[in-house]
């Protein structure tokens, strides 16, 4: 409404406006599948966005799994070289035996699964 009032004020001083408007006027264009094409592109973009994050996480995770497992193995080797008294003290303190601790590969796989799950949840929210 406000726009129409401003428009009218613009036009009052413009004697040629009706003629120019008639010259510039054109018939409404039939849709002929235009909206369908646009919406197909929009939906494609939505799906690409949804899939990008999980795909990146899976690819990144699969690339990182080898060096990450190497790091974990190296750390366990460092842990093994520590004096037995020190490790016994740590185990006594926590009240756990070494055999009851989860294997390094289990921790790594759980981490990757957790990351992928988080990514999927975020993608679904988006």
């Amino acid at each position: 409404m406000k726009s129409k009032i401003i428009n009218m004020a613009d036009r009052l001083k413009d004697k040629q406006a009706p003629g120019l408007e008639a010259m510039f006027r054109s018939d409404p264009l039939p849709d002929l599948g235009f909206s369908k094409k646009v919406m197909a592109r929009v939906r494609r973009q939505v799906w690409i966005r949804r899939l990008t994050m999980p795909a990146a996480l899976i690819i990144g995770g699969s690339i990182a799994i080898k060096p990450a497992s190497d790091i974990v193995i190296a750390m366990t080797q460092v842990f093994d070289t520590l004096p037995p008294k020190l490790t016994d003290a740590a185990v006594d303190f926590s009240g756990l035996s070494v055999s009851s601790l989860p294997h390094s590969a289990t921790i790594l796989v759980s981490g990757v699964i957790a990351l992928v799950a988080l990514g999927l949840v975020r993608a679904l929210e988006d």
Partner: protein
Amino acid sequence: MVAKQDTKAFGELVRRHQSQIRNFLRKLTRDNVLADDLSQDCFLHAWNKIHTYAGRGSFIGWLLKVAYTTFLQSKRKSNRYHEILEEIGHAEDINEERVSRDSDEINDLDKFLAVLSTEERAVMILSYACGLSHREIGDATDMPIGTIKSIIFRGKEKIRTKFEIKDHQYG
């Protein structure tokens, strides 16, 4: 609804406004195929930037701003493309092909629009074909109202002098 990325609601907006956007870009580019491609890009940009529409002013005004920006981006790319073609000596072939293809569909409005610069054409179309106010045109083109008024005046003068039209003969 649309601001929350509701595809159904956005589909309704596309159906409602496609004609105005396509007509605006057809007049601006004077190439129906290019205009329809740009219209699709415009709606895709609108979908991505829908959260920037604050609800101030008309939605079609905002959509025409997106369409004009899409056109300018495409023009910049096309200019760069022509520069590259000129460097390798193919520009004349392309231009000749375009003129022969378009010459069949030239009407009076095309002749008028041809004498205007891109900026003048955009402002004149937004004013007389789309019916936007000077302020809305200013918002759509990022130009002050004074500049819009002088562009419209200049555009009308160009058409008048080029085609020897008197005031009462418009239309």
